[in-house]
Every structure is written in C-alpha cells, then in structure tokens.
C-alpha cells in the first residue's frame, strides 16, 4: 500500500464521501433532536416556530402531564408484561423445537423440517387469522399478544444451526451419565448459547415494544393497551388533549402546547430503547449475521 500514491481524484472522492457520511449522521439524528427540543420548549416559542434542535426556554409541563397520567403507566406495565412473557415463550418454545432438529438421528427430523418450511411460504393472511383468533376466544386476552407468531420457522432454523455448532460429544457423554434430553438442553446446551438467547431475546423485546397493530384489532379495552396504542391515540386519534383532563385546561390557557405533549409521549415511548441501544447494539448486528450466514 505504501508504494501506492493516491491520485487527486481519489482524495477528492474521500472528501465528498466523508461529507456525505456527515450528512447521513445529521439526517439520522435530526428528527430525534427536533422532537426532544419541541417537547421541552416554551409554548410561545413553539407558536413562533423558533424551535430547531435546541429547546427554546424550558418547559416540562408536557412531561408532567404525561407522567402523571395513570393511562401511560398502565400501558407501560402492559407492554412490559407482553414483552417479557412473549420473549420468554418465544425463547423457550424455539429452543425446545430446535434441539431435536439438531440431532441427526431424530426420526421426525425430516417431517418437522418440511412442516416448518411450508410456513415460510404460505400463510392464511389477515382475515383467516383474525377469524381463528376470534373463534378461539382469544380476543381481548393477554395470550393474543404473546402466542401467535411466538415460534417462527426462521428462528427455529437459526437456533438449530447454532446448536449444531455445539460439539455433539457433550451431549453423548451426558447421555451416558444418565441425563435425559431436557437436562442436556437446559443444563448444557442453553448455557452455551447465551449470545444466541441474548440476541433473539432482544429482537423479540423490541418487536413487542413496537407492536401496535395486533392490539388494535385484538384488544378492545384501553386498560389492556400497550404503549404504542396510547401513543397512537395521543398523536392521531384525539389530539394531545386526550392525555388527560388537565391537559385540555392547560392547552387552553397556553401553559402547554399540544406539541409539548405529543413530542413528550414520543420521547417517553422511545426512551427505553434509546437507553439500551448503545450497549446492546453489537448483539443486534450479531443477530443479523447469525441469520444471514444460513440464508
């Protein structure tokens, strides 16, 4: 490389490429900064249209309204329950199903593989699934938020591939020591698969955190709504005044701008993800890698 002298055009390209990457950073971060700035700005500054990425004045009334609304805390609690339970079921059922498929002489291996593969290409679609869930009486229950889709063919295949990478001798020697397959899976295989569980656990958590459509069609009581549904309501359905009665009064007396409230809910909704993102980023990327090697 040392002998290779860079041409002028190559250096010009580097300059533009670097500028372009800085542009990408700005584009990616600007909306978040703008939302935070709006959520914290004075009513008068918002009305004058002065807010950019730095809060003008300092106004936490929007946050106060949101955080004193019981609705938000109930939704937060619901979301955490759906996410934790859903993720637990996903990891448990996926591991259980993937383990036998990683064993070469499992008699049903071929059948189960075909059984799974078919679901990758065919699905019933929105309406038949909706009817089924209605007929099963799952509407407005916690199960509708955690069971459908908890086992996906793709995840089972990734788990199986990962388990196959673990030395089969471990299993065989445990077998000779009298351990059964459940003990082998939970005491030997899963402790060796922490990275896999962490990665897919995170994906599942984020998926539940961000999901809203299932709640829209399957839940009909607000006290069961996850956080995204409350966000949807405050942003699109009934304006910011829906946060609570106090909000309406404060908007009318110009103590708080509807945007303060709307942007504050957005911040409160994405805050948990943003807080863990920097630390867990590598696991997310790893997840794509594990998946793409197979695919």
């Amino acid at each position, binding site marked *: 490389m040392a002998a290779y002298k860079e041409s002028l055009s190559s250096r010009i390209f*580097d300059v533009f490429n670097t500028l372009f990457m800085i542009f990408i*950073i700005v584009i990616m971060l600007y909306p978040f900064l703008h939302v935070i700035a709006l959520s914290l700005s004075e009513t008068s500054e918002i009305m004058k249209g002065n807010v950019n990425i730095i809060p003008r004045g300092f106004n936490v009334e929007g946050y106060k309204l949101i955080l004193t609304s019981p609705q938000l805390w109930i939704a937060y609690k619901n979301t955490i329950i759906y996410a934790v339970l859903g993720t637990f079921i996903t990891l448990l059922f996926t591991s259980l199903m993937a383990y036998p498929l990683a064993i070469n002489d499992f008699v049903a291996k071929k059948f189960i593989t075909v059984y799974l593969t078919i679901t990758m290409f065919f699905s019933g*679609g929105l309406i038949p699934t909706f009817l089924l869930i209605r007929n099963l009486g799952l509407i407005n229950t916690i199960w509708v938020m955690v069971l459908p889709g908890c086992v996906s063919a793709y995840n089972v295949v990734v788990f199986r591939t990962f388990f196959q990478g673990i030395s089969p001798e471990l299993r065989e020697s445990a077998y000779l020591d009298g351990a059964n*397959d459940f003990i082998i899976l939970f005491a030997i295989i899963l402790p060796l698969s922490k990275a896999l569980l962490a990665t897919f656990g995170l994906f599942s958590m984020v998926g539940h955190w961000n999901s809203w459509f299932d709640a829209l*069609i399957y839940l009909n009581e607000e006290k069961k709504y996850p956080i995204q549904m409350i966000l949807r309501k405050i942003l699109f359905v009934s304006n910011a005044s829906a946060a609570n009665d106090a909000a309406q009064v404060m908007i009318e007396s110009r103590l708080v701008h509807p945007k303060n409230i709307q942007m504050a809910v957005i911040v409160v909704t994405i805050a948990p993800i943003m807080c863990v993102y920097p630390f867990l980023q590598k696991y997310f990327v790893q997840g794509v890698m594990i998946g793409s090697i197979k695919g």
Partner: protein
Amino acid sequence: MKEFIRKCIKQRYLFLMILPGFLVILIFNYLPIYGILIAFKDYNVAKGVWGSDWVGLKYFKMFLTNPMAGRLFKNTFLLGLYSLLWGFPAPIILALLLNEIKNDAFKRTVQTISYIPHFISVVVIVGMLAEFCAVDGVFNKIRVLLGLEALPLLAYPQYFRTLYIASNIWQGVGWGTIIYLAAITKVDPTLYDVAAIDGANRWQKVVNITWPTIKPTTTILLIFNISGILGTNYQKILLMYNTRTKSVADVIGTYVYELGIQGAQFEYTTAIGLFMSVISFILLFIANFISRKVSETSLW
C-alpha cells in the same frame, strides 16, 4: 417397523420437546391456511369453515368486477414499484460508500447511528412525519426558504408516495447495509493489492472486485423484494392516510383491513387476500426464473 417404533419410544423426550412449537404452528399457521377456504364459501360461524355452503368463485368475481379494484391494484403496484426502485439500491450504495471510509472509528460511528431508526416503531415514525409535514413543520420551513407555499403535506396526494418511501428509506437504509457489509468482508484483501499493482483505480476496484462479491446476496434479496412488491406496509399507511390522500394511498392491504376487520366482510376480503398471495407467488417464480437465466443465482 419394530425397529422404528423402538426408536420412537427411545426418542420420546425429543417428541415432547417438539410438541409446544408444533402445536403453536399448527394453530396459528396451519389453521388460518385452512380458513382460506371461506373465500369459496358463504361463511357461517355456527356451521364452521367446512360446513358452510360453497359459493364457488363468487367473491373473486365480485372483486375483479369491482370498480375500486383498478385503483387498488394501481396504487399497490406503483407504491411497491417505486419503493423497490428507490429503496432497494439505497443500502447497497450506502454500504459501498461506507466501505470506502478508511477511518474505522468514523465508519463505525456512522453505522451505529444509521441503525437507530430501525428500532423505532411505525407509530413513532409516522408521528414524527406528521410533525415534520405540518404547516409549521420543518419541511414547510424548507419550502418557504425555497419560495414555495407552506402546505399540510400529508393532505396532498401528490406528496404521499414520496413521503411514504422516503420515510421507509430513512428508517431502513442503515440497517439494510449490514448484510452487504458482511458480504463485502468476504473479499480477499490481497485482490485489492493485486489490482492496485495492476493500476486499477478505486472505481475499477469497486466494479471488478467488490460488486461481484456482493452480487449473489443482492440477487437473492432482489428476488424476495420483487415477490414482495405487492406486500405494501399497509399498517403504516393506516396511520398515514386520510380522506384526501386516499386516491393514491388506498392499497389492497388497507382495503382488506377496512372491509374485513371493520366491515366484517370476511369471505370477500379472504378471497382478495388469497388472490394477492397467488400473484405474489407467481412474481416470485418469475423473478427466480429470470435470475437463474441471467445470473445463475436462484433460490432453488
């Protein structure tokens, strides 16, 4: 046969392990596939899917003779096509440009930041979009600077597709680079050195070394994207559209939601869903066939 049964008994724990996942998939994947039958029936809850009376292709004819169908097809197809044309190359270009960044720390920073929007929910994305498109929002400030009139952009059909596609790209482009960057790391670095000795410039290296390496990945993803061209993200559109933009925003997915879930026309909307699945399947076959002829990369 005896041998087989003995083996099954010996592997009983393995069967027990399969069971929960097997049942979940049977119930939530296979039963809805069976439920598609109502597309050919006059569905009666009391009689069940099988017991309901057959009506043949009634609902398919109903859809194809519906004057709305043309608009729905056009909107779905155009939105999918434009999404593909703009959205598919974006992460490839970004990945190739990122690959040319020599400072590793800077490169990693750009990557880490560009992944963030991927983790944001559709509700938040559309909420931000609505704020940016408001009359006093950021996009209109830019419009005013350019001497244009401030407009509530989400209420104008001519901006709908651009906003939908641009926000999709904003959300997905960074995350989309991961798979290409992973493919690029498989390039043997000595190839670049050899090419440099031969006097190749950077553009030539990209065209002759990097691009051929990521081409199979690109082809596979392209096949999937083409077959998914009709699978618009209707959940996002449900949050984005309004009566004024419906003329372009109305797609098959939103129509099925409105008539099926809200209007309880189950058989009709199931028929529409099935019809669209069949078309997507045909697209997958065609894309795969062309790819096999042209580039020798195929799914099967």
